[in-house]
């Protein structure tokens, strides 16, 4: 995947043309050019997204649904077109299978509250040891509410899911739902999603994928994965904050009770009894993030324009480069060696605390994240308090990773 298929090596001009579409990349930080290696936390936004949002607010804004006037009809149409974009992105059967949420976190909580309310004591939810807090805490809250069991599939020392143990956890047939990441935000591990789905289904469980990271790096096809639920968050996909999505099989959405109550999710309301609109409206109570949905649609268009083949090749090349140059930094250890990985690399450096690494990199204009990355249990499993993490976006260059490595070497020399 490395070499002439990457965005960069294919045509360097392409990447600078592409970078020019992200206004923030020409900012300086502490007098140095910004080197933004924190895209896994949240990606930067291309002009296409920023402009789609401002244009909507400048020329075509109104509340959607139930509005009989032109502005409202146009806004409704734009919002629903964005829904179709998401459906296409994920390979969904129908746009009605897409529910807009604020982010991945809300999407998972929606499933935990709504699908979760159909579970009974004696049943179990199975997660993994490498989940983000967003895919742990909602299930703990569900456990405490409903009395289901919460099971955890371990990860190997390399940072892969322990498939055998996963199978064992499923074997008694009590697991009603598997909720597992499609790509780890700490280790970069891409999980063998289709295999996990097959094993879950064979054991009578549904499966939810946390696609927050995966959807950014590869083409996802929920039908090819045979998933039941898939969630992602817009702001990591070069889209706006405040918008994310849940995809679920239509039958599931039909079966599930509403999560929140309010405008737009009802069919009729009397004080005694209300009836619900069909999905997805049933799950979208109140005025949604209209402009943000449209921004997400623009982000998806933009990403599809670049193309997932190019994106994954580019990120594979960047990751390979990082895995080559970073270990040359004295004292630096890469955390995790997963079999299949995306553009996220965690590391530690002897004698230098990850927070000091992050601050000193920042003073050189380089943005990385340091800490537990909202994955405390994984940190504990790895015997770490914190790591530093560099993560790559479509606009990241090999040169930036080289600068990272050089700066890390200088930081380290400063401390020993």
């Amino acid at each position, binding site marked *: 995947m490395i070499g002439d298929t990457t965005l960069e090596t294919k045509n360097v001009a392409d990447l600078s043309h592409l970078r020019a579409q992200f206004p923030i990349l020409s900012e300086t930080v502490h007098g140095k050019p910004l080197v933004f290696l924190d895209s896994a936390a949240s990606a930067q936004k291309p002009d296409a997204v920023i402009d789609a949002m401002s244009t909507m607010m400048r020329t075509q804004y109104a509340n959607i649904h139930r509005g009989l006037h032109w502005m409202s009809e146009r806004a409704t149409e734009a919002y629903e077109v964005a829904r179709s974009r998401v459906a296409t992105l994920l390979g969904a059967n129908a746009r009605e299978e897409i529910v807009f949420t604020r982010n991945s976190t809300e999407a998972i909580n929606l499933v935990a509250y709504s699908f979760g309310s159909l579970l009974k004591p004696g049943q179990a939810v199975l997660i993994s040891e490498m989940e983000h807090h967003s895919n742990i805490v909602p299930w703990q809250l569900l456990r405490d509410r409903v009395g289901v069991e919460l099971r955890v599939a371990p990860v190997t020392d390399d940072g892969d899911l322990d498939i055998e143990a996963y199978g064992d956890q499923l074997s008694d047939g009590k697991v009603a739902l598997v909720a597992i990441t499609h790509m780890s935000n700490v280790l970069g591990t891409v999980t063998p999603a289709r295999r996990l789905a097959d094993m879950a289904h064979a054991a009578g469980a549904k499966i939810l994928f946390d696609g927050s990271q995966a959807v950014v790096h590869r083409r996802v096809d929920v039908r090819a994965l045979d998933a039941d639920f898939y969630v992602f968050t817009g702001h990591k996909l070069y889209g706006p904050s405040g918008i994310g999505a849940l995809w679920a099989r239509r039958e599931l959405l039909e079966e599930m009770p509403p999560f929140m109550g309010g405008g737009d999710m009802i069919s009729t309301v009397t004080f005694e009894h209300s009836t619900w609109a069909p999905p997805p409206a049933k799950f979208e109570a109140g005025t949604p993030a209209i402009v943000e949905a449209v921004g997400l649609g623009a982000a998806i268009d933009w990403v599809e324009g670049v193309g997932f083949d190019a994106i994954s090749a580019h990120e594979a090349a960047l990751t390979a480069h990082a895995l080559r140059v970073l270990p040359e930094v004295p004292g630096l250890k890469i955390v995790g060696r997963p079999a299949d990985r995306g553009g996220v690399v965690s590391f530690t450096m002897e004698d230098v605390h990850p927070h000091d690494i992050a601050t000193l990199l920042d003073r050189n204009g380089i943005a990385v994240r340091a*800490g537990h990355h909202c994955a405390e249990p994984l940190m504990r499993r790895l015997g770490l308090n914190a790591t530093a993490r560099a993560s790559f976006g479509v606009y990241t260059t090999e040169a930036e990773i080289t600068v990272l490595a050089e700066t890390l070497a200088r930081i380290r020399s400063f401390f020993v």
Partner: protein
Amino acid sequence: MDGDSLYDTLIVRRAREPRHAGELADATVKAAGNNPLCGDRIALGVRVDGDRIAAARHVTKGCAICAASADLMAGSIEGRTLSEALDMAGRFHHMLGNGSPVELDDLPESMAAFLPLKTHRSRLRCATLPWTALEEALGHD
């Protein structure tokens, strides 16, 4: 390092080679500081003699800023009265606060090393954690 005054050699040196680290066997007051966000942890032992701090030691597991702050604090409060030490804590917080420029008069000059944190607010707690632990220790006295 690229004109970096934050990681003043003082801070890095003190983090690497602390002068006041360790357990204080005959501590009369102990306190623990803990920043769950970043895992910084400090255990503080102080021996109070009358109204004076006779000795102070810390065991710090954390970043350089926290470790250096703990060590510089321990060094600078030894020999001070309790109220002087609390006053210093107050000044330290104030120095890093949002307020007006501070006279560092009554803080050891070394403390100025932390001033650049004013533009790294996410790291503030690393520097103030030892002082907060101290306030708690003396408050509980």
